[in-house]
């Protein structure tokens, strides 16, 4: 280092800036340098090739990764309880190819709305392989689900009454489930869904079913929360459900053959509210399977003793299956220095595509080695909204327009909760297990955006002559002319 500096490259203009080095401000896990972690390919396909072929931004799903995930998760449960069945939670990601992959792997369809039910049937899933949950099931779709033989799990008393009415109209005996909620002591009770156990609503529902001419209760369903980091919460859930099942033995019109524990098992993602990195915060799937299956075996032991069949176990994991099997490739479109000194970059993908950025700190990797010191950087999306922030603070080297970034894991809830706001939604590409790539959801264009619009007759033509003042200075605009004088 010399005090007489030889500056050969002065760069392009930006306001001069000095950044102090914050020694001793490392977190307890040490500074992670992104340049040690360059991501030049995703699921075996070069990032640059993907962007060249499919544009930016682009979602990429790894088929092999997805199949490995579901096989590992199913195996964790099946080897501990051989009546375990996975239900693919459509709302997590209902892109058709992804649903088909999971159905090929033996997962049932778990749907929560008329649209999802119709989609599962459209994709070829037989009714008896569909679990129909959710608080809003209109009569027409309930009728279809009953005719198809789907497992309908009722959320509230009005739904039970509607089920009874439809079953009566059809002259059928219908096996149903009910969703119940209760306090496990571990998670925030999700008391808005289903019948509450502690307050007696479950008893009311059971009483209704036991007096019913057409309904038979065969399934108990509950869902204790989302991103549940404590396997013991599931053990307690299963214990409570088994206790209820035991109490219901012998009740009229009740013969429980299914315990459905819902989902909520976390993925390896970093919740913004959690200090530990996901590798440390998120237990392995085997810990969940251990807790759940041990509690189930203990809670159903009485059935073995009385020679009764054990119930099947349905688990509806979504994010643990798909989240890390999908990435988002995005590009830097601009950079700036914020008045408080932080670097900022504007990306071509924001919270319109990455809804989960509101609660996760996604991993962001560069695709090239960048020169320059790392600094705290804010990553903004392309929306005209101040809240469109992909990462509020991440240590990155200087970014340049055209740089690609790989954001992960993004497979859960982004392709279903994404916003249609001012931008077209991009291609979703499958990196196939057999090699090669295919588009599994085509990018939107103006045709897609206009397809649902209808223009009434009186708005059919657009004649603007004499209605709008021209913006051009060459126009005969009195105010502009005055200014020009």
């Amino acid at each position, binding site marked *: *280092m*010399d*005090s007489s*500096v030889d*500056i050969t490259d002065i*760069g392009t203009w930006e306001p*001069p800036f000095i950044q*102090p*080095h914050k020694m001793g401000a490392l977190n307890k896990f040490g500074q992670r340098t992104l340049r040690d972690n360059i991501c030049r390919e995703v699921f075996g396909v070069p990032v640059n090739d993907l962007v060249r072929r499919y544009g930016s931004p682009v979602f990429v799903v790894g088929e092999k990764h997805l199949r490995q995930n579901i096989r590992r998760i199913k195996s964790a449960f099946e080897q501990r309880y051989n009546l375990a069945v996975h239900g693919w939670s459509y709302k997590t990601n209902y892109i058709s190819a992804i649903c088909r992959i999971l159905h090929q792997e033996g997962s049932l369809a778990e749907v929560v709305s008329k649209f999802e039910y119709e989609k599962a049937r459209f994709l070829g899933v037989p009714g008896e392989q569909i679990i129909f949950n959710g608080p809003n099931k209109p009569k027409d779709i309930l009728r279809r689900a009953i005719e198809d033989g789907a497992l309908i799990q009722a959320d509230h008393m009005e739904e039970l009454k509607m089920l009874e009415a439809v079953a009566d109209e059809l002259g059928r005996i219908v096996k149903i489930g009910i969703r119940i909620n209760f306090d496990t002591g571990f998670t925030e009770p999700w008391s808005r869904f289903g019948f509450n156990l502690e307050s007696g609503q479950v008893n009311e529902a059971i009483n209704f079913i036991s007096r019913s001419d057409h309904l038979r209760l065969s399934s108990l369903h509950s869902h204790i929360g989302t991103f549940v980091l404590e396997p013991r919460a599931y053990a307690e859930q299963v214990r409570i459900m088994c206790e209820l099942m035991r109490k219901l033995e012998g009740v009229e019109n009740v013969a429980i053959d299914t315990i459905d524990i819902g989902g909520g098992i976390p993925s390896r993602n970093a919740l913004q509210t959690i200090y530990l990195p996901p590798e440390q915060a998120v237990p392995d799937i085997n810990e969940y399977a251990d807790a759940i299956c041990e509690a189930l075996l203990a809670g159903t032991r009485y059935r073995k003793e009385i020679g009764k069949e054990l119930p099947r176990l349905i688990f509806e994991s979504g994010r643990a299956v798909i989240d890390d099997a999908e990435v988002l490739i995005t590009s830097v479109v601009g950079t700036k220095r914020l008045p408080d000194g932080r670097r900022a970059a504007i990306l071509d993908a924001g919270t319109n595509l990455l809804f989960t950025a509101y609660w996760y700190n996604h991993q962001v990797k560069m695709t090239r080695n960048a020169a320059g010191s790392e600094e705290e950087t804010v990553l903004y999306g392309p929306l005209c909204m101040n809240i469109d922030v992909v990462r509020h603070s991440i240590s990155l080297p200087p970014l340049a327009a055209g740089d690609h970034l790989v954001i992960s894991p993004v497979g859960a809830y982004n392709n279903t909760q994404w916003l249609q706001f001012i931008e077209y939604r991009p291609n979703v590409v499958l990196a196939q297990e057999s090699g090669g790539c295919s588009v599994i959801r085509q990018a939107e264009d103006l045709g897609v955006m206009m397809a649902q619009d209808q223009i009434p007759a009186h708005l059919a033509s657009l004649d603007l002559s004499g209605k709008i003042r021209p913006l051009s200075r060459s126009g005969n605009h009195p105010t502009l002319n005055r200014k020009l004088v």
Partner: protein
Amino acid sequence: MTMAAAELLKELSKDDRLSRIAVSDTGFIFDPQTGQSFTLNKTGLVTLSHLKKGSSIDETADQLARQYGVTEEVALNSVEAFLLQLGRYL
């Protein structure tokens, strides 16, 4: 030119404070008085090199304007803002 920036430059120039700051050609700087280190962007590096050579605020702004093709007003505002940053850290 603001008085604050002028005063800061005067203060930083005392006892060779500014000229003793070690600067590398990549923008890494070390302040031997406090033991702290910093990083400059390229324009910061060019600006500091002018100031270390004893250029005034106006002279530095004039040179930056010519080097980067920006207006003198933009360059002057930037130099003053940069000096305020230096004043916070050095």
